[in-house]
């Protein structure tokens, strides 16, 4: 059909000002129904019927921070072994079984958790849960599969040496955390992978991946009682209790303020600037989220507008508080053209100092930051997988049932003073560590002139 002139067109468009956004209808946040099986496994369900799919997420609250000292990477290897076969089923047969129901399967490992997820057409829900339980509860963890998986991870480590972002992430964690359980990336190191055997993986599975620290979350066109029954059938014989959470590994290191991993002839420098900051359970969580949004959490953040839109030094810059069960890192990350390295560091440190108080957020910045976080909040609950991820946050960090309902009003209560206060409290310029992966021959002189002390040069294979 063709619209005839005048059919929809009223007065000429008023382009003298932007139309103010109208009201948005209230959105009921997904309700989570909760049960606990006799073995301690929590079963949570959310009814979500948009499409005939069910998204299962199994959270195990043990991750890379539970790696024993010297065996860094064990949690990740063990997670990798979960889908490598069960009972008589080989690794390939396990994946054939998943493929036969069109399942989308994934495992993910973080510092505090291991997550296995599977999304399927609703009619395959029972089958998917059976497979998920074979994977998580009854993995075969065979010697010859272990040797292959470990070898692939060693090859991966070899390749990561050429990826500046990966080198920067690993070096940064080590610099700010040292021997702390958060001080290594989940993949571990050549030495630690070489030191582990299949029994270590079996032991990790036996000690850490237990029902009492786990939550099964189902989101989809499904009924709570039915899912509890299915979960009971599939996971009922999962037994044992998990080790406690790991210790803290002693005091944090005092690293130099400026560090460089040389990457000769690199066209860009990969930067990380940050420190160990704050845990997820901080009462300052909501003000910190607003503060980070303004500093480096969105396109129109101070850091991105400065380094990208004003100076053109980068494709993008961002900051994040990586909230975890214990104090997580704050990190600014950006990849800048080599010639702009020192300038980008200077500007970044300036922006952090600014938001701590020398250049407090303006009313307009605060309004924009709060609106960006709250007005579109509903879109975080569109798909089953998104809702599953939201529920997972509640389970991992022990957040209250009304967390989603409270998010918007709590964000809206944040003031400019709150922003300065929490940033001054949780970011300390004297402790900020700057790491550069870049062409030292070209940038060395400029770095020295930053006033952060002589840069400490780290060998590329130091991590």
């Amino acid at each position, binding site marked *: 059909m063709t619209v005839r002139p005048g059919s929809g067109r009223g007065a000429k468009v008023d382009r003298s000002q932007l139309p103010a956004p109208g009201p948005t209808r209230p959105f009921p946040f997904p309700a989570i129904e909760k049960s606990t099986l006799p073995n301690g496994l929590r079963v949570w369900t959310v009814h979500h019927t948009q499409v005939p799919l069910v998204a299962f997420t199994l959270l195990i609250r043990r991750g890379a921070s539970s790696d024993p000292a010297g065996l860094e990477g064990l949690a990740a290897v063990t997670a990798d072994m979960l889908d490598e076969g069960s009972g008589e089923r080989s690794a390939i047969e396990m994946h054939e079984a998943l493929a036969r129901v069109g399942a989308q399967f994934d495992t993910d490992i973080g510092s505090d958790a291991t997550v296995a997820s599977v999304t399927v057409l609703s009619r395959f829900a029972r089958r998917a849960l059976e497979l998920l339980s074979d994977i998580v509860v009854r993995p075969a963890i065979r010697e010859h599969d272990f040797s292959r998986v470990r070898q692939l991870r060693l090859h991966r480590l070899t390749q990561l040496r050429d990826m500046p972002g990966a080198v920067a992430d690993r070096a940064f964690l080590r610099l700010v955390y040292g021997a702390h359980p958060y001080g290594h990336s989940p993949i571990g190191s050549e030495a630690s992978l070489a030191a582990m055997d299949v029994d270590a993986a079996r032991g990790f599975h036996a000690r850490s991946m237990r029902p009492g620290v786990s939550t099964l979350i189902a989101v989809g066109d499904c009924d709570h009682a039915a899912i509890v029954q299915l979960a009971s059938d599939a996971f009922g014989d999962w037994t044992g209790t998990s080790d406690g959470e790991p210790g803290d590994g002693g005091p944090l290191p005092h690293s130099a303020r400026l560090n460089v991993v040389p990457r000769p002839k690199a066209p860009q420098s990969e930067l990380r600037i940050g420190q160990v900051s704050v845990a997820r359970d901080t009462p300052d969580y909501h003000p910190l989220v607003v503060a980070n949004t303004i500093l480096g959490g969105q396109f129109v953040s101070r850091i991105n507008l400065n380094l990208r839109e004003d100076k053109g030094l*980068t494709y993008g810059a961002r900051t994040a508080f990586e909230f975890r069960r214990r104090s997580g890192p704050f990190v600014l990350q950006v990849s800048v053209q080599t010639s702009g390295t020192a300038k980008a560091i200077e500007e970044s440190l300036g922006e952090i100092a600014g938001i701590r108080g020398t250049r407090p957020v303006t009313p307009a910045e605060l309004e924009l930051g709060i609106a960006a976080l709250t007005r579109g909040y509903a879109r975080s609950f569109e798909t089953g997988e998104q809702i599953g991820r939201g529920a997972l946050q509640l389970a991992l960090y022990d957040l209250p049932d009304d967390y989603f309902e409270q998010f918007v009003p709590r964000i809206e209560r944040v003031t400019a003073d709150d922003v300065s206060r929490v940033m001054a409290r949780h970011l300390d310029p004297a402790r900020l560590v700057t790491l550069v992966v870049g062409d030292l021959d070209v940038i060395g002189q400029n770095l020295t002139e930053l006033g952060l002390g002589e840069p400490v040069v780290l060998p590329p294979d130091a991590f």
Partner: protein
Amino acid sequence: MNIPFTKHTLENGLDVLLHEDHACPIVAVNLWYHVGSKNETPGHTGFAHLFEHLMFEGSQHHDHGFFQPLQGAGATLNGSTNADRTNYWEVVPTGALELALWMESDRMGYLLPALTDAKFTNQRDVVLNERRQNYENRPYGLAPMALLAALFPPDHPYHWTTIGDVADLQAVTLDEVRAFFRRYYHPANASIALAGDIDPDRALALVDQYFGEIAAGERVDAIHVAASLPRDVRIHFEDRVELPRLYLAWHTPAMFAEGDADLDLATDLLANGKTSRLYRRLVFDERLATDVSASQNSREMMGYAQITATAAPGHTLDELERAIFEEIARLAAEGPTDEEIDRGRVQAEAQFMFRLQTVGGFGGKSDQLNAYNVFLKDPAYFRKDLERYQVCTKASLQAVVTRYLDPARRVTLSIVPHGRVSLAARDSTAAVVS
């Protein structure tokens, strides 16, 4: 399984697609311009993508950043450019639909008065940094440059990557930007889809109100340039990598053309995931490779299939090449098993269902409606698209593998560590890439 919609065409030629979904109080606004890097010419590459960046720098009646008002309204937004099209999208709370339409229509109708040399220079620097970050400073990052250059002759529109050549980006002038905008950025070369919490009548009236006043531009004719590979083109280059990697590429049918879906399934069962034949042989059983993947890269004029594998230490690219062609020959001779066909069908069904979950963003329902409308003039194609996969047979897969994955006509690219040219697959010559 489908995406219900209504289609309207404004007087100025703008296609409008409307899809209601009231599950979430959000609306996806998705705008496609039928222009991509294939509309560039040699010496002027990277232009369509650089232009996309300029679309976020303000227009006549809102000469500030594009992001700020929309983020302030709770929107998320982005844009992207590929060889065939450029898309822009916002996902906004229901009450901010009019704002998004105001903003999109202002940059469609009134971009040039706000375009300055300073904005242009700044975004060119940003794009050069995007190129450094995603291609030059990334292991194997220049592979697409080498592959496309070998697959298509220098004057073919698919010869270059969307990010473009550095020298070309540095040579662009503001006048070229203006001419490009006038040629391609107008209602008759665009399609807008709204999906989500809308009232269709009011949504159409708003689109007409904001976009109806923009003058129709000159129609853009489709480009069709043929290309063929006469032989096995064998090239290599050295890169800052630890392990040598082999890339094989062939010309294949265009997006949605006959054989496209079969090749999609064939490349999946060859090398997508742990159940695939090449993963099983190269990574799992023989441990010759650390990874292997394959894809049918469908494009508007023609496609190309690609298989990529990285040699495990101690193994050579020649070994990988041999094993890969043995598996291709076996698939061509014996065809897929019934089990593989069944798996392919249920996976297609699930994948299509997954695609119905979101209204906006890259790949959401609004983006899919526009893809079908722009490339096929048939936004109702979702169901037919799924059917393409469901009617594939053992014989049809055998036929495409035999016809298209031809060992005698392909590109064979080796990327090897600096100073280790001997690790390249046999008989290859050095390619110049940057």
